[in-house]
């Protein structure tokens, strides 16, 4: 039987290396065929925000297409797609109150609203949990 890992994330995108490392870990877990639960707390509710958009970069001298700016929402969508292809699941829960405060309700498909009770239930039913706090 496949493993299930839970991650609690707190960092908003584009602010800190932690969000990228967290997604690298989740990607690695999914590549193994593990089920992954994510509880996105505080700024992390913006990781799957649907309105993230690429832009050109005059300093780099690149157009929108050339710049190919990373978008965490696209990384998450790709991870979810890979999970589905492997018969695994990524259950991504955005903390509802954090979403409300931040006006971050528009998320990509596959993200649901939840609460700390969801996080505790995830943790109880997983093989292990990693909390990546913010600073």
């Amino acid at each position, binding site marked *: 039987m496949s493993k299930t890992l839970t991650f*609690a994330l*707190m960092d908003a995108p584009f602010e800190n290396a932690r969000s990228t490392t967290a997604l690298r870990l989740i990607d690695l877990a999914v590549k193994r065929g593990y089920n992954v639960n994510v509880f996105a*707390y*505080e700024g992390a509710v913006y990781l799957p925000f649907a309105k993230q958009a690429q832009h050109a970069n005059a300093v780099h001298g690149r157009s929108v297409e050339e710049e190919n700016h990373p978008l965490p929402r696209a990384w998450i969508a790709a991870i979810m797609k890979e999970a589905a292809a492997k018969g695994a699941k990524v259950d991504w829960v955005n903390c509802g109150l954090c979403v409300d*405060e931040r006006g971050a309700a528009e998320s990509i498909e596959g993200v649901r609203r939840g*609460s*700390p*009770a969801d*996080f*505790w*239930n995830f*943790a*109880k039913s997983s093989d*292990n*949990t990693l*909390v990546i*706090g*913010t*600073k």
Partner: protein
Amino acid sequence: MKVLNIVEAAYRGTLEEQDDTIIWICHAMKGASADIDVLLRGNAVNYAVKAQDASGLAFGDAKQTQPPKLADDLAKLKGKGVKVYVVEDALTERGIAANELIDGMDLVARRKLAKLFADYDQIWHW
């Protein structure tokens, strides 16, 4: 499953959030019947200081009416049966005397943390 929640970062967004969001989530998890305790280390040991007062914040004529009351939040956690450990060395380093703290805090020496961790199935460092 018994979990120790470690809080180290202090006063991070507490004025905007009206609480420390990790102490808050511990309350919420306890409400969901979680078996949890809390360890304060680093600057977060200051949360146990009785004399904290964040009232009076205002911007233009918009007054904040509900300031965070971090020591109260810890006391309430304690009231729900959650142990709140505070690293004693961190208090001393910061010049905080034991009688400045709210009641019910469990002081633990830094060198004894490794032994404390053995009591928990998981340790979440927020």
